[in-house]
């Protein structure tokens, strides 16, 4: 493992910031510490994996992918809160791939149960099990976990470092540690003597770490207050470095074309026309495709267009209709899970009115603004890969496999991500860049996807089908019986990552389906898995992204069948199941002035989804305008338990909603001859300045546990909009995208 100074010099810092002082602070211990990835070089010593102090100041490590969700700032704020440093005094780096940077919250979310029903005991078990993440080398970002993971651990890291620095000062000054105070990176003695953390770091490094209690909330300076984002100035000035911005001496540029029938191979290719094109240096057989190395990326892309390739067929049905017919076959088999089975869903309660509806949603691309890319250099038996990625340790392992190296011979340099949304959980781009680097040892090569290549080679949000049946009586829901069928991102990812079969009930497949926080006496929700081989993956909010549409659209149908206002219908069920869910519904009711009535030419819809620990309700208003429909207003309320940074949370909520609205209105990947028919933004549009609604967000802090914020804004968007369109037009949307059935403003 490279020393931190080498890493710092190579990747992040100008000049040579010598790291001195070293102490393994206790916060990252479980039963025994994972190796500190910040191993000292000569004349250096590392502190713990999250706090480094040198002569120039304090460096904090936020080893979570900064993909827009503000984690660099929030993570640093958690450490700084207890360490007593100011955010504008510190440098914050991502750091290398390392087991010490495991995500303790990944596993807790996989526990049985509906999530919102976790008592303190179950919550504690989740926290304990989470530390398995270290053993499993789960260094990653996803599942809206970062704050759940870091909330306690990072404050402990800061507090332990602070107390140990104070002890070093106490030893030097001959006073008791308890007499010392700390602020802004300085220890102050009763007589006014001031010692900077930099001055004390070497002595602190020799002490055993001192653990301490965390401060009460009433003493917080940073947590709970909006902080200026640490990445903002760089992102407003074009100086933030994304994967695609890596520039190295002697670097070559490349692009590629892989089989658009994903999973199919390549029979052969003819590159004779490309070989002689300007700037072309090398055409490389990539297995299921070709790459061109050239003087610049555009010349490589031009040459690729001139290559004739004979592709093999796809390992899945080639046309969209056949794809969905295949998915529907999953209903014929027994369910993979029935994670909710309350009462008796087989028997229609006496006097109840029954209704049923089928729904369908398409495959979706992630379409991050920054197309997939990675830069790789194979030199002297070591591989270095630069890319934005959400899973550094898995990326490291997979690149090592491709290069025929051990993981510790591979350095992963994680840059800013130009959007993640779950796409950069995958590692295909890094492995392909490694494959190319193998052909040109000693020369760094940057491999960039065209937009078309990016859109046609995704691990898509699965297309999904639902069959819903319900019953209402006396204005209330008395029965809900649903089945959902789709391919499983978890099963496919397990295969991609470790060639392991998935086992047991697939909770992610039915998240948002089995656990809506509603009391319905007869309530059964079943998940059916399709083994269709179109690649699928984790798309912002994953199972919730389709399940919330199915459940919240059908709940709306039930409300109308019951003759009850759709918001009051939900409120009644939520109050009887989980108060925070009712709280977010009440909040949007008040914010939007919901009266159950709308003016002519205006429609309103509501939806609520509990996901990643956070209930979110959204009211969306649509208006007729010059013959088309505008999404004019939106109101969002979320309950995160404890808001770490309110400004960042608000941005995640309206941004998450925009991502959901984009998909609901315009998003679909369809297939013809085995390939995705959409290739670029003209075929796969999104919310834009003129179509984005005016939005208000309210952040509540009523529930007992900390909830995630990166994804929960997305699931309610599609059903709230579809319900608003029903209110406006009387037409019920049972398939997406909505542009096929409604005249939406574009």
């Amino acid at each position, binding site marked *: 493992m490279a020393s931190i100074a080498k890493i710092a010099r190579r990747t992040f810092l100008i000049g040579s910031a010598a790291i001195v002082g070293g102490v393994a602070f206790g916060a990252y211990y479980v039963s025994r510490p994972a190796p500190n990835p910040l191993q000292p070089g000569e004349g250096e010593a590392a502190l713990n994996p999250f706090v480094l102090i040198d002569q120039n100041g304090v460096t904090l490590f936020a080893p979570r992918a900064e993909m827009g969700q503000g984690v660099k700032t929030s993570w640093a704020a958690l450490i700084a809160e207890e360490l007593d440093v100011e955010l504008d005094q510190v440098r914050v780096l991502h750091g290398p791939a390392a087991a010490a940077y495991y995500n303790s919250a990944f596993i807790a979310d996989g526990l049985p149960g509906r999530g919102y029903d976790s008592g303190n005991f179950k919550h504690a078990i989740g926290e304990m099990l989470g530390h398995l993440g270290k053993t499993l080398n789960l260094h990653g970002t996803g599942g809206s976990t970062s704050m759940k993971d870091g909330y306690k651990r990072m404050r402990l890291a800061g507090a332990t470092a602070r107390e140990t620095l104070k002890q070093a000062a106490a030893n030097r000054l001959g006073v008791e540690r308890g007499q010392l105070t700390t602020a802004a990176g300085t220890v102050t003695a009763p007589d006014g003597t001031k010692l900077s953390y930099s001055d004390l770091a070497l002595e602190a490094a020799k002490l055993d770490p001192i653990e301490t209690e965390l401060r009460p909330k009433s003493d917080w300076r940073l947590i709970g207050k909006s902080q*200026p984002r640490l990445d903002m100035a760089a992102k407003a000035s074009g100086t933030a470095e994304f994967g695609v*911005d890596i520039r190295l001496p002697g670097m070559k540029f490349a692009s590629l074309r892989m089989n658009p029938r994903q999973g199919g191979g390549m029979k052969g290719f003819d590159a004779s026309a490309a070989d002689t094109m300007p700037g072309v240096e090398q055409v490389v057989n990539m297995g299921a495709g070709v790459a061109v190395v050239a003087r610049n990326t555009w010349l490589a892309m031009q040459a690729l267009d001139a290559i004739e390739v004979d592709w093999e067929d796809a390992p899945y049905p080639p046309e969209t209709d056949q794809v969905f017919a295949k998915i529907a076959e999953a209903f014929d088999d027994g369910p993979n899970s029935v994670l909710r089975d309350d009462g008796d869903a087989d028997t229609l309660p006496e006097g109840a009115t029954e209704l049923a509806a089928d729904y369908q949603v398409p495959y979706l691309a992630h379409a991050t*603004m920054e197309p997939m890319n990675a830069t790789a250099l194979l030199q002297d038996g070591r591989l270095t890969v630069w890319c934005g990625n959400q899973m550094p340790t898995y990326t490291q392992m997979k690149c090592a496999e491709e290069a025929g190296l051990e993981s510790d011979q591979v350095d992963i340099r994680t840059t800013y991500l130009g959007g993640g949304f779950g796409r950069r959980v995958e590692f295909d781009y890094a492995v392909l860049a490694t494959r190319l680097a193998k052909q040109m040892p000693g020369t760094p090569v940057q491999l960039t996807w065209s937009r078309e290549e990016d859109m046609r080679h995704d691990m898509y949000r699965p297309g999904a089908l639902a069959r819903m049946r319900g019953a209402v009586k006396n204005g209330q829901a008395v029965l809900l019986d649903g089945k959902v069928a789709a391919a499983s991102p978890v099963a496919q990812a397990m295969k991609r990552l470790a060639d392991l079969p998935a086992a047991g009930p697939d909770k992610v497949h039915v998240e948002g389906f089995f656990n809506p926080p509603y009391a319905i006496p007869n309530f059964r929700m079943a998940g059916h898995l399709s083994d269709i081989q179109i690649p699928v993956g984790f798309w912002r909010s994953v199972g919730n992204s389709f399940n919330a549409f199915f459940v919240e659209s059908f709940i709306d149908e039930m409300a109308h069948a019951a003759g009850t206002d759709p918001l009051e219908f939900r409120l009644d069920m939520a109050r009887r199941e989980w108060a925070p869910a009712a709280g977010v519904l009440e909040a949007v009711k008040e914010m939007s002035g919901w009266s159950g009535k709308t003016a002519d030419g205006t429609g309103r819809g509501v939806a609520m989804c509990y996901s990643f620990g956070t209930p979110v309700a959204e009211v969306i208003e649509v208006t007729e305008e010059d013959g088309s429909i505008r999404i004019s207003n939106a109101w969002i309320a979320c309950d995160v338990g404890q808001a770490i940074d309110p400004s960042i949370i608000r941005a995640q909520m309206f941004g998450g909603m925009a991502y959901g609205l984009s998909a609901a209105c315009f998003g679909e990947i369809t297939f013809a001859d085995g390939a995705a028919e959409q290739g670029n933004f003209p075929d796969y549009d999104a919310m834009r*300045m*003129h179509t984005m609604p005016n939005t208000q967000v309210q952040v509540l802090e009523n529930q007992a546990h900390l909830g995630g914020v990166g994804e929960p804004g997305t699931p309610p968007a599609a059903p709230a909009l579809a319900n608003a369109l029903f209110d406006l037009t009387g037409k019920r949307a049972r398939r997406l995208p909505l542009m096929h059935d409604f005249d939406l403003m574009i």
Partner: protein
Amino acid sequence: MSTDLRINGKTHQVDLPDDVPLLWVLRDEVGLTGTKFGCGVAACGACTVHIDGEAVRSCQVALSDVWGEVTTIEGLGTPDAMAAIQQAWVEHQVAQCGYCQSGQIMQAASLLAETPAPSDAEIDEAMQGNLCRCGTYPRIRAAIHSAAQKMQEA
């Protein structure tokens, strides 16, 4: 073929085929990576730069067609000396992933040069070619209004 380009006040001599788009000249030849590649078909606006003050999609301007002085995000202002529009972006905490923001800011700067106090409708009109998958639009709008006000007061 050698072409002289004026970029951010400096002259650069590039030796490339005529049809290479300005975007790739900036990014891969001159090393100005603040201008981003998003789509290559003028559908996202991430590559927006100014030529003689006019906002253009640099992925659609061939090297031989560059008709004037090019300004990129790096030429608009630096982290230590930001233009008013960039300061407004920081004040309103606009960026999330940040990838599209160079293009958004260049488009907004050209809007404000032509229309010092744009209405919401004028902002819609000028900015609708710039895609943001993070959905930062509400804060972009607020930042444009705020920058307009500050620039008029100045």
